[in-house]
């Protein structure tokens, strides 16, 4: 079980320190600072063992969160907790920064008291927490006994993530499919590895205790239906459906139903949350193709030509496109010519950064650069790191489609048709690299 939790700033100064168990001494705080934050060699492992004490850390911008334990705990549980902790803090006061943490430290201690008890993680659902941990301080009059008992019954009840009696004039639902596509491609255009990791984010403003059912073009479901009755063209249905490699759900989803019928049904929490997370590796639509051409001219010159091709429907527009072309470490000067967008040599990052604001589908664009090199003593050859790319496209590269999201509320008098539903797809680049 978690013995304590510390938050440090980038210098290693302790901002928050909460110890839950006696086996964690005061020196544990310093041990982590000395051995991890100030370590001579950068510590890359998220788990560090110092003097029989385990430290699990995550880093958010310049802030270090470290959970400490002397026991043999489930590391995945600890990290899940740390991520949840980050989410909760973000939900309460926005970006996790030194400034924000200092301004909200009373709140953070209050939260830490609530979501960890003697080192055991408790309810960390933001929606539920917000009902009894508020930022506004004590309101004019203290909560009535009824309200208090309601909170207790909700927090300890079966559906801890939603309280009863929510009412909205307009029942609305927002569904975002956020995907990040990762790629490694050989210079010849061969895909070496590619996968999409996606999340379904949901924002719900629904009255009462509605029962929702979410459907997408999961291959298993489609195939089952195809077999069941309608004589769809199997080829067509194959293309329409996607194979999900693995997925996880929010705690509100009834897993037994998913296991037996593979249907996703749940009572949603109020507000914003992540409904599911998934990963696919097959039949990924790669939004961009990068064609590099690097030529070494003698020992002191390098010619680089990079062509990018957009590979989606011409009607769609990709945004925030950025191509990063690494330059050798002994670069002494760079000349760049590009047709579209802006390109610049950034010495501090040892790369040429080419930015394009917008680009429609089925287009192509190119950049060429001349890099002058300084002869060095080292005979080491340049390692040629891959060209990486960032972008945002308005579709899901995995091919995922939301087929339906049905809402049933038996007690209140609104039906599925009355709910206003919004669906949006955003595909972003993860690590999108092409070797050159």
């Amino acid at each position, binding site marked *: 079980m978690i013995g304590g939790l510390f938050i440090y700033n*980038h210098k290693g100064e302790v901002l928050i320190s909460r110890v839950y168990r006696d086996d964690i001494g005061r020196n544990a705080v310093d041990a982590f600072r000395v051995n991890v934050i100030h370590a001579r060699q950068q510590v890359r492992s998220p788990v560090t063992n110092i003097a029989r004490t385990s430290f699990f850390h995550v880093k958010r911008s*310049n802030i270090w969160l470290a959970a400490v334990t002397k026991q043999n705990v489930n590391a995945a549980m600890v990290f899940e907790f740390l991520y949840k902790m980050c989410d909760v803090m973000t939900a309460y006061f926005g970006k996790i920064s030194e400034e924000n943490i200092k301004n909200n430290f009373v709140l953070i201690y209050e939260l830490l008291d609530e979501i960890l008890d003697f080192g055991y993680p408790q309810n960390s659902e933001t929606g539920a927490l917000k009902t009894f941990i508020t930022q506004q301080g004590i309101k004019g009059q203290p909560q009535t006994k009824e309200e208090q008992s309601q909170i207790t019954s909700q927090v300890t009840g079966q559906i801890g993530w939603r309280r009863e009696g929510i009412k909205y004039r307009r029942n609305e639902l927002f569904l975002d499919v956020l995907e990040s596509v990762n790629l490694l491609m050989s210079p010849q255009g061969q895909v070496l590895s590619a996968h999409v990791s996606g999340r379904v984010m949901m924002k719900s403003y629904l009255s009462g205790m509605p029962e929702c059912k979410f459907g997408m073009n999961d291959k298993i479901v489609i195939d089952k239906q195809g077999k069941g009755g309608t004589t769809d063209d199997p080829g067509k249905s194959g293309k329409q459906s996607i194979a999900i490699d693995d997925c996880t759900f929010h705690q509100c989803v009834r897993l037994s139903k998913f296991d037996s019928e593979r249907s996703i049904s749940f009572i949603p929490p109020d507000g914003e949350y992540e409904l599911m997370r998934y990963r696919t590796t097959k039949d990924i639509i790669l939004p961009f193709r990068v064609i590099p051409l690097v030529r070494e001219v003698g020992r002191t010159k390098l010619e680089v030509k990079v062509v990018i091709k957009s590979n989606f429907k011409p009607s769609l527009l990709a945004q925030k496109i950025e191509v990063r072309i690494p330059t050798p*470490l*002994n670069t*002494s000067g760079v000349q760049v010519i590009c047709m579209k967008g802006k390109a610049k040599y950034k*010495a501090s990052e040892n790369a040429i950064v080419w930015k394009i604001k917008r680009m429609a589908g089925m287009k192509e664009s190119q950049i060429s650069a001349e890099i002058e090199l300084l002869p060095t*003593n080292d005979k080491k050859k340049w390692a040629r790191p891959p060209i990486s790319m960032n972008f945002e496209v308005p579709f899901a590269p995995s091919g995922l489609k939301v087929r339906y999201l049905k809402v049933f509320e038996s007690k209140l008098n609104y039906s599925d048709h009355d709910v206003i539903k919004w669906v949006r797809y955003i595909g972003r680049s993860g690590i999108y690299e092409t070797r050159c």
Partner: protein
Amino acid sequence: MPAVSKGDGMRGLAVFISDIRNCKSKEAEIKRINKELANIRSKFKGDKALDGYSKKKYVCKLLFIFLLGHDIDFGHMEAVNLLSSNKYTEKQIGYLFISVLVNSNSELIRLINNAIKNDLSSRNPTFMCLALHCIANVGSREMAEAFAGEIPRILVAGDTMDSVKQSAALCLLRLYKTSPDLVLMGEWTSRVVHLLNDQHMGVVTAAISLITCLSQKNPDEFKTCVSLAVSRLSRIVSSASTDLQDYTYYFVPAPWLSCKLLRLLQCYPPPEDGAVKGRLVECLETILNKAQEPPKSKKVQHSNAKNAILFEAISLIIHYDSEPNLLVRACNQLGQFLQHRETNLRYLALESMCTLASSEFSHEAVKTHIETVINALKTERDVSVRQRAADLLYAMCDRSNAKQIVAEMLSYLETADYSIREEMVLKVAILAEKYAVDYSWYVDTILNLIRIAGDYVSEEVWYRVIQIVINRDDVQGYAAKTVFEALQAPACHENMVKVGGYILGEFGNLIAGDPRSSPLVQFNLLHSKFHLCSVPTRALLLSAYIKFINLFPETKSTIQEVLRSDSQIRNSDVELQQRAVEYLKLSSIASTDVLATVLEEMPPFPERESSILAKLKKKKGPGAVSVNELEEGKREGGELNGGGERGGDSSAIAASNASTPSPSADLLGLRAGPPVTAAAPSAGSLLVDVFSEAGINDDGFLRDLEPTTESSDSLLAEGPGDSDSAPPSVVSEDPTPLPESDELLNKFVCKNNGVLFENQLLQIGIKSEYRQNLGRIYLFYGNKTSVQFVTFTTTVTCPGELQSQLNVQSKPVEPLIEGGAQVQQVINIECLTDFSDAPLLNIKFRYGGALQNLTLKLPVTINKFFQPTEMASHDFFQRWKQLSQPQQEAQKIFKASHAMDTEVLKAKLLGLGMALLENVDPNPENFVCAGVIQSKAQQVGSLLRLEPNAQAQSGEQMYRLTVRSSKDTVSKRLCELLAEQF
């Protein structure tokens, strides 16, 4: 660093450094550095030439970036360009960069060397110094190759400036230390020595460091420096404190130089020239006199400088060890320091006195300070000082004050610091034994020692008590009485129980007359401790009980009851259970006569003199050994030792015992504590050496049971020798395995058990048995550290054609050895045909983070598969003649490397595995042996003849060794193996 004028200060550099310091994170710092590097690259690449200032600035930045831990792979050229600048600051930065970042890049090195050469040949002393500093800082072999010839010339040239001479001397010293083969002084020697006469004190100070280093390597060439040093020293010592203006440090004239001179003199014996010696003695006296003068300053620096010279002078006096007068004065001076306020002085005084105590002239003088030292031992706050005080007490001890010192040390032991207790215990034990006039005093002392510091008493100490008690008839009764009394304490240490059990088991009858210590009382006393003890002690106690049955038949029923009880006869520990069962049967079946023979009193232990004890114990006569022989012969009774004679070295017997084919060889595995555990304790090696020959363990105690208990034959066969059959001299500290593993191999030709290898981390013990063409080796890997070894793996390989000659199978060993623990590995060997190589044992493990890798040779040699063959003289010569073809014979004539002791030779030949044939050779001096090598493919009969010649030409002892066997390779290999043994 010269004072940088405002215009010369590099603003860009300052800005860059402050930027870096202000970076909030590592990433920001890296970005800033990347940017700067790009900027410098573009500057260096730029078409227009840079001026010296900017070049200097950028090189400085690169240097700074490099020192932050980033790789720099350019800018060397610019730095080399700076070397040729005429401005001091630019040249300096260039040299700085080169000495920090130089790598053996061929083209650059040539340029750098060229620049250095130019500077060396310039007339500018500052430039010459810079160049010399650069050479010394880099100090690589390339540098030495390029400049080793030139620097001595600069050093001795008449027109070189003094400051350059200083640098040159130190530079040369550095080059000499890195590559002594390249710095050839030869012709310069005398001129370098004459630098001691230089006007400039700085030059002398620098030169003397060089001369000291050189004269340590070849003292003869620099002999002349002694008289020069003496005269220089006397000039300094006799000068008034104001004479040497710049070199007077807090009223002490040239303290560093004086110390170095005194240290140089310590490289040589006392000067033979009377005048020089007189002068030196005068100097030393003056130094001693000065110590008595009142200090000229209250500052600590003054007294430090003065005392530094004084201590150096005292170590010189100790080094000479020839001037009684000076030694006594030094001792008195140190005596004063013993009570000084300053802890460091007291420490140094105690340390120096330790060495003084070993000199015959000053020993008495040191002894006068005994009270002070004892006081220091009791009252010093610092443990390291107390340690020195204990060392000094140990050193000053002799017969006259032994009782006092031992008593003091014993009383101190009760409160002593844990870190030095073990060492103190060993010291007390040694002193008590060394100066014991009265053995009852010795027994008292050691028992006291066990009582006070039982946990720190190593096995060897109590082994030793028992050895001495057994060997001395006069003390046995007293020992039994004392032990009996000591055991009556409600809580006594386990070691005390061990000693008590052993001694009462042997000599309990001597005190049985007294009704207060009647047999039953003795037994009940011992048995009351039984349940509090560990398994080995319980085993020992069980053996004591069976001895009781023999000594006092009236206790038989009581003891049988105890043995029969479930806690003994069904003990979960196999060793205890076996003992209980066997002893019970033995006591109920055997007649009293048999019991009396089997459980006879232990024979005296052979006095095996270790290197130190040999000197210490002259008064103990060799009588013990002769008494020994008869009984030993009766008892061992094995066919190999049938002659009834035993070698002086009982380890050889242990070895030959183990090689006897035994009906239940597997029982070996039962041994609870493998032999290697009797490794050296952590105290100083000198102390350990004394005890390394001890070796009684309870198996030795039981050895006399051997003939009756058939089943545990080989279990009990380990004589006391097995734990120490490889004396520490075998043990090598050097971790490089292969070169010396041949040597190790040779040590094991004639014996089967011992310590195969040892270094700081690991000890490998070996125990092996052979039968026909099969062999089994037990390897014991002992972790000597407190840290566990991980991924411990061993592989046994047969190189080359050995693969087809030997079949080796090893069981995997556990990959993890805890600190201080030991694991065992079993290796089975089958000899397919005759062979000459040895299998290789490779050991790999991680200690801390570092991978350790060792390769050793397993001591498997062809002679291990010998089956001895007894034959009469007639048969022998008939066979000898049959094997008369030239290739069947191998002969070697060699010098003896050990003394020619008939007994030792016999033991070695027996250890070889062949049968030693008596009365075969007409010359009784010669030895003949016969045996058959058993391999799977064939049997190779071999005959051997060893002819010692004690009075060969020029008094050297020679051997002629002839081996004949039916296979030529076998004869050759045997001959090679054996030639190393004698």
